[in-house]
């Protein structure tokens, strides 16, 4: 599998570290309540299709990426720098 790092270009997936669903980008506030935190940390959709994921270009520039990937076909739809999402 290959990922297009917006900074480095297209690279082999061996250069990347996989984190999981991009839910981790939406950190609840300290007072959001137990349910919101439980959801944030533990509950994930079991999608058989497009999924927003977090990858880190560990063996490259160190950028955190939000990758939209079809987990059934491994087709990569989009790759966005995580830092661009909150801006």
């Amino acid at each position, binding site marked *: *599998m*290959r990922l297009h790092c917006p900074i480095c270009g297209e690279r*082999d*997936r061996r250069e990347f*570290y996989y*984190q999981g669903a991009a839910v*981790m*980008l939406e*950190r*609840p*506030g*300290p007072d*959001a309540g*137990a349910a919101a*935190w439980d959801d944030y*940390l533990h509950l994930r959709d079991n999608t058989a299709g497009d999924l927003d994921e*977090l990858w*880190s270009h*560990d063996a490259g520039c*160190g*950028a*955190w990426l939000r990758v939209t990937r079809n987990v059934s*076909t*491994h*087709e*990569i739809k989009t790759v966005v*720098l*995580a*830092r*661009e*999402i*909150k*801006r």
Partner: protein
Amino acid sequence: MRVDGKGLIDRSQPVTFRFDGTAYRGFAGDTLASALLANDVRHVARSFKYHRPRGILTAGSEEPNALMTIGRGASADPNVRATVQELFEGLEARSQNSWPSLGFDLLSVNDLAAPFLGAGFYYKTFMWPRVFWEKVYEPFIRRAAGLGALSGEQDADHYEKAYAFCDVLVIGAGPAGLMAAWTAAQSGVRVILADEDSRMGGRLNAETLAIDGASGADWAARMVSELAAMDNVRLMPRTTVTGAHDGGTFGALERVSHHSNGVPKGGVKETFWRIVAKRSVLAAGAIERHVAFRNNDRPGVMAASAVRAYLNRFGVSPGKAVTVFANNDDAHRTAMDLQDAGVHVAAVIDSRRDAQAMGDYRLMSSAMVSDGHGRRGLEAISVRTASGVEKIATDCLAVSGGWNPTVHMTCHMNGRPTWQDDIASFVPTPGAIPGMDTAGACNGSFATAACLAEGAAAAMRSLEALGATSTEVAVPEADDSAYKIEPLWAVPGNGRAWLDFQNDVSVKDVKQAAQENFASVEHMKRYTTQGMATDQGKNSNVAALAVLADATGRGIPETGTTTFRPPYSPVALAALGAGAQGKGFAPERKTTSHAATVAAGAPMIEAGLWYRPSYYPLPDETTWRQSCDREVGWVRNTVGICDVSTLGKIDIQGPDAAQLLDFVYTNMFSTLKENRVRYGLMLREDGFVMDDGTTARLGPNHYVMTTTTAAAGQVMRHLEFVTQALRPDWDVRIMSVTEQWAQFAVAGPKARTLLNGLLDHSIDDDQWPFMSCGTVGVQGVEGRLFRISFSGEHAYEIAVPSRFGDSLFRLLVARAEALGGGAYGMEALNVLRIEKGFITHAEIDGRVTAQDIGMERMLSKKKDFIGATMARRPGLTEDGRAQLVGLKPAGAVKQLTAGAHIYSDGEEPMHEHDQGYVTSVGFSPTLGHYVGLGFVRDGLIRHGDVLNMVDHVRGIQTRVELCDPVFFDPEGGRTRG
């Protein structure tokens, strides 16, 4: 036998080789198989299960029978297919799967016992009695199992991995592949053309078909040489594309040195490639299938296409009186080619009623071969016709049941092939691999003209998709005869008719599987083992499916295929793992003090990839404990030096650096003054401890964080996540500087004495109190000094740019020795920190909370931080959790062991009575007894309790007293003084 005037071999270059000890001669350009056939060696192997004599069946990588061991000793390769092994001077081949010899094989009794060894035999037989499982059945199965044998020695040959990139990858260099590569190359895009054979051209080298009036082989050779001259084309012969993977990535195995006698010095045996292609054209050809009939596995029974390949490419006729058995027109060319070369064709047997002779040979239509005679080599066949059974003398039967397109690669990403009735076989389903086009025989188009046209068309589609300007190329004239076939899978009759030669699976076995309700193709496969050998059923899958479909009353498309998985043909693990053995798997990270440390005779231990000294032995010391005790004493009484460069160092700068630290640490860092150091505790978002360490503030917006050696990578990634993904609005930059700085602990009452005289300006307690830091001059080099302590003594850590590390270490050690101390290693470091109750990842193992280690007060209530919310959830804060305690021996046995568990008095040492466990232990020479750290249920309020420690693994049991984890100098006066 050799046939004069035929073949692409070089008869001016004779080659000598040995097979099972006997010397033979062949020619350059031969394969081992063609040279054996030229020498009339027909019986070359024994089959896997029944040890039946077998001969060469094919002329390609699909060969199921002729598996041999090539070479000797550590570099011997088992299971090499003689049909792909190029001949070289001095080649040594040995047959496999026979004992004591190929001619007389004891396990061939299996063949006589065959009625008892059919499908499902293992499942039914090795069940009872239970006591036989280990003692009888397993040794028996192990001895009988497996094809070939490894040498048992380390493989000394070198293998490599490599990467290649291109716009168009063309897989297979037959007429379709050559035409595709040629067409794509004209536009200037980067083309890779890979073919498993040493000579490109595919079937053109094996047939007498003409292209543009010239011989097909000559046309192929001309195309290859023109492609080779182009800068944008890379030819990869002897390279099997083994798999199609995600994102246009392909695996490919290049056999670099198998055609030479040993790997040349400095060379490699095989290279495993990862080829990344924007587009690909599959032109993998087709594999001729067999027909099942009684004794269709006699040596001398071959694929018709293989007989033509041996004749036309290698100038060898596998027989003197050849018969042909077919259900299609294509195979008739075998008879024509043989006759043209002067070989006697005894008969052509065609199962079709309307079969037409293409030349002057005896044609028997509506006829089938019903038996093969001659145990070690074919002598005659029985032919069943409307008028009865006729026995025909023949030493070679060329069989063709039609062609199976090589669709394998199109199914590597979950695709399934499509059944095509007119060719009675499966063809690729379009779009099964993104970016891949298929062309030629692998697409079900068997005529040469169609192969050429489809190759050009596939390349044009690739160019269009790439947006490259394409040039129309002329497709040469070639044979365009139709492929006429009537399916024939198995000749009816008694006796065993073989489908899978490599795993000895017969028509009867498949029918039996269906009868016993293993009717799904995946079940049939596993029950009979059909298609599970190293050829993965390349010769037998479709026929076995057809037999299964017939037995279950379904059609072939409804029966479906099993899953095609990479690799297309076997790949040695040595090639897949190239570069990842030994130090390639775990590279060495060395500190700047490595050379001096090794010179001092210190045994090294691994800490992750780092190498660190265990202890520094003196000449009169015989045990590590003596060295360790002495080094601890140095630090407690004089001064010791220890390389601490392996700890992670992260440089943090920017106006928001303090905010970042407040967010990732549980305690406050924005309040830290310049030139001061603070201990920090870091949690994961789920509330458990991630890491700990000290962070120094070097300037208003400049901090240096240290992490533990073990978690350096994890913490760096975590900080990257926080700064990029959670708070990209903060103006802060982070950078790992672990390898840029060499850092040494100078610890002990004489630490300052040591430093004064070394530093450009002397230091004192007022300027440099405990937990201070700053820039210092070290013999004219700008360095950093931190007054921090991991030993509980008056101590410093001194850092200089790495290039000065070696000289600084030597200087520090020399000065320490002059003061009566010296270097200390990990063992002493560990004892020193346990005496002080300092934790490492032995304690913070990912299951431990701040409360568990007695650091609840470090969870700031004034701010949000990573892990703040979840650290306060009930499960992490309620009573009953295991908490950090000190442990000291309180019974007759004075030893403590890490990993031991702790149980209450008077209770059985078993899981349900578990009270906790021991994480770290060491003998404290300072206190004269063992000291340990561990986690015990509610341990914080149980100091003074005496419990049982039981180490079930080492068989050690003692009583331990729970105490404060700080064994030595609890007031900390030594650190500050």
